Structures are given as structure tokens and as C-alpha cells.
């Protein structure tokens, strides 16, 4: 079996939620949660929106363009913001690319 390598997230990466990860509403506490092995993360509203766009089809540049439309902001600036966030989520095993 091939050794696992660290996923490096760039604008051409097509991130998706890892198979062992669930993004779900926590109705009892009124929040959204990322459920992962022995971990519960609480994503902020921006992260939730980004994660919903991580479908394994869109690349990061496309995700930034979609967000640019809804935030009326520059796609390049958004891309620069979301790449470190996605890298962090990849390092935590929340997303794969």
C-alpha cells in the first residue's frame, strides 16, 4: 500500500469532505459541527459555506469565484483567504483533495 502523503491544497485542488467526516447540524445546541474520528469541530459560518462547496468537482479557484459572487468581493482575495483554511482542514483530515 502506497505511503500517505500530506495533501497540499492549491487553486487547482478539488477538495471534498473526507469519507469519515460528517458536516451536520447540531440541533440540541443550535450549531453546525464537523464530526471526525474522536473529534468534534465547530466551523465558523464562512467555513461552513466553503465546506458545502467542497464537492470534489470544483477546484479551489472555482470555489473562490462562487464565494466572490455571494460576497461581492474579489475572487483572488477570497482565494488567498480560503487556501490556508483548506490546508488547515486537510491537515486535520477533514477534507481530502
Amino acid at each position, binding site marked *: 500500500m502506497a505511503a*500517505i502523503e500530506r495533501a497540499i491544497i492549491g487553486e487547482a485542488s478539488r477538495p471534498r469532505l473526507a*469519507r*469519515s467526516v460528517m458536516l451536520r447540524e*447540531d440541533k440540541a445546541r443550535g450549531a453546525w459541527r464537523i464530526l471526525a474520528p*474522536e473529534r468534534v469541530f465547530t466551523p465558523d459560518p464562512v467555513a461552513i459555506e466553503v465546506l458545502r462547496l467542497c464537492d470534489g468537482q470544483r477546484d479551489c479557484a472555482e470555489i473562490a469565484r462562487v464565494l466572490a459572487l455571494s460576497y461581492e468581493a474579489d475572487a483572488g482575495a477570497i482565494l488567498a483567504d480560503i487556501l490556508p483554511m483548506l490546508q488547515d482542514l486537510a491537515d486535520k*483530515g477533514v477534507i481530502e483533495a
Partner: protein
Amino acid sequence: MSEPSLPTDAARPPSPPPLGLLAELTHRCPLQCPYCSNPLALERPKGELATDEWRRVLGEAADLGVLQLHLSGGEPTLRPDLEAIVAHAAQVGLYSNLITSGVALTEARLAALAHAGLAHVQISLQDTVAASADRLAHYQGAHARKLALAAAVRKAGLALTLNAPLHRHNVARTADFIELAVAIGARRLEVAHVQYYGWALANRAALMPTRAEVDASVRVVEAARARLKGILTIDLVLPDYYATRPKPCMGGWGRGIINVTPSGLALPCHAAQSIPGLVFDSVRARSLQEIWETSPAFAAFRGTGWMREPCLSCDRRERDWGGCRCQAFAVTGDARNADPACALSSHHADFTGAAAAEAASAPPEFRYRRFSGAPAVTVAE
């Protein structure tokens, strides 16, 4: 020794819902690890909850606000209805973790569990050297079976965690555990120094490492964490005996987790039955929500109302919640005392001294975990 007295209703804090349910499906296990976290008095198979009872409990847990289900034991795969339990957990929206020894699970059954909605598998390894691992588990061939199952978990596309309980017989191989985890393709490794309650307390002298060995294992883990960022997450659990402040045991009593035993007793912690004077409710008689919110056993050490000095005025009292109640009772004779792992405890010097003395002596034979093997008395200080 005094019995724990309950805080008054006025002092009783609210109880936000638990995040996790630890479901001990059975206390049966093919392995006999001398540091097993089950109580010394193991529950017999005859009294185990039936499938429909577990289904009801899982539904109640989800309604209460539980997000994660930890299917544990004993060995949970000895339950022939595990697939049905996992399927129901998925149906009610629980994230399910299987905590297994790995020796009794076939690849076909693993595939069925994955299909039923299992999210994550955690396999314990006793050592990286087969002969030593099999001796610790008292099960010939256990290690090879575990490695085969780990490969099957990866093949099935499930997330894999390895759990490495550390003690004097394997602590020198901390780096080997990390290498093995990477080679197998686990994304998470628990480097968990044994916690000395129950069976492990009865085997403390046989297991206790020296402080130098513990420190070396910490250095190995810290170096590996930096090197393996994005490849392997390593969680490190230290032994209380060489700490200066206690850990927030269970995230605080009655705060984050409910443990349900094979026969349906709801406990704030898997070792809670070692504390005398607590009365535990059964999920057969009351709903999980009722138990969580009104059971005196859950209220007994919830929050800070039960505390006395040095916990009472400590600025860490809402961070470590006074540490472990079971350890406080086992070592000091009173569950309301500070955890002796804390340097502020008057028992701390004796506590660490006992560990250091045992670690410096030749290890005695193991008392293996068996239905019939419980020692008559626990280790006294």
C-alpha cells in the same frame, strides 16, 4: 473515608447535553490485557441489553444531543447484532466509532459494518513486536490478526486510528508505534500511557514506566508531530503519576460523556462503580435524558459545588474539574479530595513516590483480565 454527599439543588449546575455515548456492548473479550479499562467486576453476558434496547438507547442519545457513539466493550464485535446497532446509529444521525481488539472481526463483516454506516475504526496494538504483544494480550497470534484487520479497514475506505497503550514493557518502542501507524496508513494514533484505574491499578507495579522513559516518549511524539503534519495526527495521553496537574477526566464528571454498561447502567465514567455510595440508574428503567438531568450519581461531582480545598479556590477548577474522582477515591479514600495527580494534593508526594519506587523495581507477574481473575483487594498506597 466519607461517602460523597450531594450538592444542594441550589448549587446544582445546569447540565448541557453530552457529546458522546460510550456504549460497552459486552464485557466479553478474547484478550486479557492487564490494563483493561473495564471494572474489576466484569458484567456477565446473561444480563446484556438486547438489540431493541440498544436501539432505543441510541435514539434517546441522539434526541438528547449526543453526536458521537463509541462502540466499545469488552470486544464489541462479539455481539452478533453489531451491524443492526451500527445501522440504527446511522439512522438516528450518530457518528459511530468502533473500538475493537480486531481479533474477532472478518473482512466480510467489516464490509457489512461499513455498509451499515460505520465511520471509523480504532484498533488497539499491545506492542510493535508480535511476541510481546501476544504475551500482553495473553492471546497467541493476536498481533498478526490486528495488523491484517488494520489493512482491511484501509481497504474498506474507513478511517483508521491505532491505539498504543504505553507502559514499561513497550515505552521504549514509541517511535516504532509511530512508524507502524504511518506504514499501515492510519491517520490517527493514540499514544496513550496507561491510566491506572481498575485492572491497571491492580497491575501498577507490573506496568509503571520510569519518569525518564515517559519523558523520552514525549520527546519522540513531539518530534514526530512536526514531521508528520497532515499525515498522522498523534494524540498523547500522559500517566497521571508523573504529572503536576490532573487531567480533566472525562472532560469533567457528567459534562460530556455518558457510559452505558453491557447490562444498561448509565455511568458518568467507565470506572465510576469503584466509588462507593453512588447509585446508578439503568436505561431499562429510565430514559437517558432523565438520567442525565436528574440522576444523583451524575450530579454528585458535576461542576464545582462538591469541591473542597485545594480545588475549591483553585483557578484551574473549571479547566481540570478537580481531575479524576475514581483516582481520588482509590488513592486517598475520599472521592471529594483533589486528584492526587495534582501537586497541590497532600497525597501527591506519596503518589508519585509509589510510582517511582515500583518503576525502579523488577516488574511482578501480570494479573490478567478475566471474569474469574479479579483481585480481592485493589492496590493500597
